[in-house]
């Protein structure tokens, strides 16, 4: 796939989902939470385009609001894990004495399957949107830290950094004025992938019941609610899964496109 094509397809896919989520208030044909027991388990028709669930709630409306929750949690994770991960990665890449300690700690965190660590953390913290975001950030920050460290290690020996050091610039100044901007590209690429991972993992948390609690619509939660009616009402679980896949695919394509455009080292090989 050519670089720019992946980037553009990904961007368009992401924008479409994001718009659907952001405009949920206007787009959703029904209230996503209000139940109507006379309309339970309606198969898709002209009133309920994607059918209704066991509360008689409109599946389409719930998906639209669910997208919003996924995006919100995903963004929180991108920011939190980006900030913490970048800070740790920069510290490890710059202060060589701290490096082994920090990176062993990151290795330790990364030894857990991300989803499993997030499940355990979210369960211990209690189910809520913020706690899900915290749990996922802890699970994915080490990956960001590792990427950042690698980028800092490359950058620190480059001429412009050495020159800044030579003229006696202070460490904070060097780090934030010279090193950080040079490392932004891999950071952005990495966080795009973290976004994708977070959306997938959030769906797992909600599916298992340690994500944002009902009746809040979440994509994973809708699938969980639909699984008991796999045969009788397959429409409940089908669409949220496809929406997750669409969103994650868009993010992955965007990440690939960004990586090829921003990271010349990767372009040389891939």
């Amino acid at each position, binding site marked *: 796939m050519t670089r720019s094509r992946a980037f553009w397809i990904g961007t368009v896919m992401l924008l479409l989902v994001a718009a659907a989520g952001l405009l949920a208030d206007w787009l959703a044909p029904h209230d996503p939470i209000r139940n109507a027991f006379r309309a339970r388990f309606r198969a898709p028709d002209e009133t309920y385009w994607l059918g209704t669930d066991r509360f008689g709630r409109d599946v389409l409306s719930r998906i639209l609001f669910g997208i919003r929750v996924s995006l919100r949690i995903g963004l929180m994770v991108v920011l939190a894990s980006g900030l913490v991960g970048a800070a740790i990665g920069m510290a490890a890449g710059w202060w060589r004495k701290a490096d082994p300690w920090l990176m062993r700690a990151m290795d330790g965190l990364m030894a*857990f*399957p991300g*989803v499993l660590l997030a499940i*355990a953390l979210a369960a211990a913290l209690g189910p809520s949107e913020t706690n899900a975001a915290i749990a996922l950030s802890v699970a994915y920050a080490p990956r960001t830290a590792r990427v950042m460290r690698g980028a800092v290690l490359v950058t620190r020996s480059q001429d412009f950094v050495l020159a800044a050091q030579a003229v006696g610039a202070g460490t904070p100044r060097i780090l934030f004025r010279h090193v950080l901007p040079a490392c932004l590209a891999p950071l952005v690429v990495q966080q795009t992938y973290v976004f994708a991972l977070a959306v997938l993992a959030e769906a797992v948390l909600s599916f298992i019941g340690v994500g944002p609690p009902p009746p809040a619509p979440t994509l994973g939660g809708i699938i969980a609610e639909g699984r008991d009616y796999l*045969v009788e009402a*397959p429409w409940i679980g089908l669409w949220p*899964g496809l929406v997750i896949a669409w969103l994650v695919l868009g993010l*992955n394509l965007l990440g690939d496109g960004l990586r090829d455009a921003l990271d010349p080292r990767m372009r040389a090989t891939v």
Partner: protein
Amino acid sequence: MARLLLARLLQAVPVLLVVSVVAFGITWIIPGDMAAEMAGPTATASDLARLRTELGLDRPPLERFLAWFGGALTGDLGRSVLLNQGVAAAILERLPVTLSLALTALVLACLIGIPLGAIAAAHANRWPDQAAMGAALVGLSLPDFWLGLSLIWVFAVQFGWLPTGGFVPLHEDPVGWLRCMAMPAGALALTQLGPIARMTRASLLEVLRGDFVRTARAKGLSERRVIGLHALAASLVPIITIAGIGFGVLLGGAVVIEQVFSLPGVGRLIIGAVQRRDYPVIQGGLLLTASVFVLVNLLVDVLYLIVDPRLREGSK
């Protein structure tokens, strides 16, 4: 080579230390009283006191951690009050299921992913490449638990070809085992073959630019042989790395997949423990899963040394 191995082993020690602090530390972040949460409402004050002693909650956190860590070193992960069983025993009992699921999925992912990557590399930037990489990316983007449910719907409900779930040990009934494993391992493999296919393609492309491939081509070997044998062998190291990392991801994915397919593995044990707030099991499960991952990566490093003679000389 022995020195290298030893160094690698020593590196794993602090990692495992961090792993155990994190696994144990889960209980430090619980808001509220862990014993009250576990004992339930019908518990009397003396029940609660007994449980607190059994969990060691009457001791300071550091002392508790040291006791737990010391136990873990000797293979004692404490007792599950709710399962009424040793945590280590409960996990070991279920580990074969999880390992066989993750391994089967890994083998499947390699069997599909490596050829997919090879095809892509052989036709770089032409339509087979784009199709293969597109497929890998789509697989990577699917939620595995949703895929599992969809597979149940198609293969168990619509066609009735495969059981909806459950587990039969391999040594008792190989065919039954295969039927039980087909969908869960398939769902996991499909979502995990992406990285393997992508890494295969990338590292093959790099190798294909190398000298010895040119030599092989010059010798008049067919393109298929060049890629199929020589180049693929040379690009094994990164593929093994990504497979090793993928194994960890598979272990994580197995957690939900076991739930969906009613497989009696470690994942289901941990999810059950999460739902029952059985903290000793959560701690032990986390510790063991992470340790398995560290161990697998150690093995991967050993494999490197075998596969790549350049590393064996000790240039690091």
